[in-house]
């Protein structure tokens, strides 16, 4: 049984201007102790995917389809009380902006103890001891003093450490980190990532790391999902995504980050165009209008996700075209493309 299975998850925001399909059919699964990275630009649906797992969406957003299974148990449609028992206990989350993610009118102690006593049998004293222990674990000096302080009295990095301490206090199986370093200074970013890496190894929980920073993904993650306009453009093990990208968007992303080891003359190529307007999604592949290799079919039909290599799935018509050209494309009985031959079948192997 997988730790977490997300299947064809669809979440929409019903705004006065129309339905915004923030997440439109995302699937993945996560095993114990693994780190899954979700990358994509703003509005690609990364955070909404995370909030959908925990069902902490805000109005007017709601899950419209698909399933989320935690240890085989379906969460979509489950009673609120069951979800609550999982939130902060089995699956925890830390947010992008530690400045605003702690309640300003209560002390750190109050908020930490609240989280701990909610899911454990610890009494107030024991909860406080646990809070102290957690603050030490996340590398906060003088934890006794910090407990008595308010969020605004701490620095950004410190607040994010508190958030991590709070998220890990109940020893969750999964930690979702929603752009945990975006709002922080660069030096602090590195510290927080290092801390998360250390804690992951120490405590062995699985992590879903949501970020727009490919560098973060490369260092930490076992598997990667690249999202664009609410869908997974490409997903697979990190090595495949970085060294053998099979989607034009991923390729574009990789071309746009500097690399010291590369030839100095290499130019950074930005992805042209503007991010999609989710209210007016183009028909076909959402990335096509910005894609240099877009074909006529890309503008008309959404590409089907096919297996392009071992542990590597991609939704790009270019793969189909290449498969047809080289004769390596396999289809099912109705003629739908499924995989590029040579790619090891998903069955039994490690998949996402």
């Amino acid at each position, binding site marked *: 049984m997988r730790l977490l299975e997300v299947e064809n998850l669809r979440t929409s925001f019903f705004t006065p201007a129309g339905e915004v399909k923030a997440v439109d059919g995302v699937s993945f699964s996560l095993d114990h102790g693994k780190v899954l990275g979700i990358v994509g630009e703003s509005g690609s649906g990364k955070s909404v995917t995370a909030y959908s797992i925990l069902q*902490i969406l805000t109005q007017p957003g709601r899950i419209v389809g698909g399933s989320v299974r935690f240890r085989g148990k379906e969460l979509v449609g489950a009673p609120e009380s069951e979800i609550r028992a999982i939130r902060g*206990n089995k699956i925890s989350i830390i947010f992008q902006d530690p400045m605003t993610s702690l*309640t300003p009118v209560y002390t750190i102690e109050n908020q930490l103890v609240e*989280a701990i006593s909610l899911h454990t049998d610890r009494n107030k004293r024991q909860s406080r001891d646990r809070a102290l222990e957690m603050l030490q674990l996340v590398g906060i000096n003088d934890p006794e003093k910090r407990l008595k302080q308010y969020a605004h009295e701490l620095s950004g990095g410190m607040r994010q450490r508190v958030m991590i301490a709070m998220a890990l206090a109940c020893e969750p199986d999964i930690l979702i980190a929603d752009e945990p370093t975006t709002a922080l200074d660069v030096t602090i970013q590195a510290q927080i990532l290092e801390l998360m890496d250390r804690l992951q190894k120490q405590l062995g929980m699985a992590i879903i790391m949501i970020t727009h920073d490919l560098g973060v993904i490369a260092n930490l993650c076992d598997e990667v999902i690249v999202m664009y306009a609410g869908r997974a453009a490409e997903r697979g093990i990190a090595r495949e995504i970085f060294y053998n990208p099979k989607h034009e968007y991923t390729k574009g992303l990789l071309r746009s980050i500097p690399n010291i080891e590369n030839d100095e003359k290499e130019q950074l190529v930005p992805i042209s165009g503007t991010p999609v307007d989710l209210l007016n999604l183009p028909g076909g592949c959402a990335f096509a209008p910005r894609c240099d290799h877009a074909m006529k079919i890309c503008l008309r039909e959404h590409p089907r996700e096919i297996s392009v290599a071992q542990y590597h799935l991609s939704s790009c018509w270019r793969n189909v075209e290449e498969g047809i050209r080289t004769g390596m494309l396999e289809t099912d009985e109705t003629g739908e493309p499924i995989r590029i031959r040579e790619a090891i079948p998903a069955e039994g192997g490690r998949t996402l």
Partner: protein
Amino acid sequence: MSAKFTGYLLRRFGMALLTIFLVIVITFATMHAIPASPFSSEKAKSDATIAALEAKYGFDKPLPVQFLNYIKGIARFDFGLSTAWVGSTVFGLIRNGFSYSAIIGLCAAVLALLLGLVLGSVSALNRGGIIDQVIQVITIALVSMPSFVLATLFLLFFGLRLKWFPTLGTQPGGLFLPILSLALYPMAYTTRLQRSSMLDVLGQDFIRTARAKGLHWYKVVFKHALKCALIPIVTYAGPMMANILVGSMVVENIFSVPGLGRLFVNSMLRTDYMIIMGITIFLAILIVLMNFLCDILYKVIDPRIQLS
């Protein structure tokens, strides 16, 4: 209490005293700018009598001296003598009237705040729902209705037509209608304020954190959201008291409550400037002190405020 907080308290108190002083100056200057003597309107008085009266009240002295004496008096709760009700001190009359006005004002304020908080929160939590819409319609109607119109309507319907409540404030239960007509406007205002404040807070990141912890929604709302949402309400409480105290002036007249408002209107009719000054300054002191208390409370609730 830190030294910083004590410093803030002192500074804020100094500001309050300055404001009160300014009000006294403005009141004094305005009242003495009126050309007529409070005694000249009354007939059958010789010039000699008027002069004697002015000497008795100290009106014959130069203005700065009068002002100094007046300020000194106020420090001892001595607002001078009434010119219309001979033999009464202004403070004595104010004290009698205030015993009514205080009850009305306090009840109205408590009623307005409690109902407003509850209705505003309910409205915010049911955003867009039928309850929310009903509350929204009722409150926008109530904030568009002057309290004297409401009071007169209540007097007509509940007092004179249906006879559910007495129409005179001095009768038992007679304060109910004045309190209700005074409370409804601030209640509706508080409701609207609390609704928008609550919605604002509910949209913030820390609410998401609280939900992600696995807290029950009532804990999220009543512990995390409510305390933050209360902050704007506290800042409104001061002006609200002022609104109620001043609104009380007309409502007391409508329901014949022998409070400060009625005293004020009667003093106007009998051109007793001493009482008009006294009531203005007395109410101003109350309002300024109320604002002072609200400011302090505000700082206590919201730890983020820098005490600079």
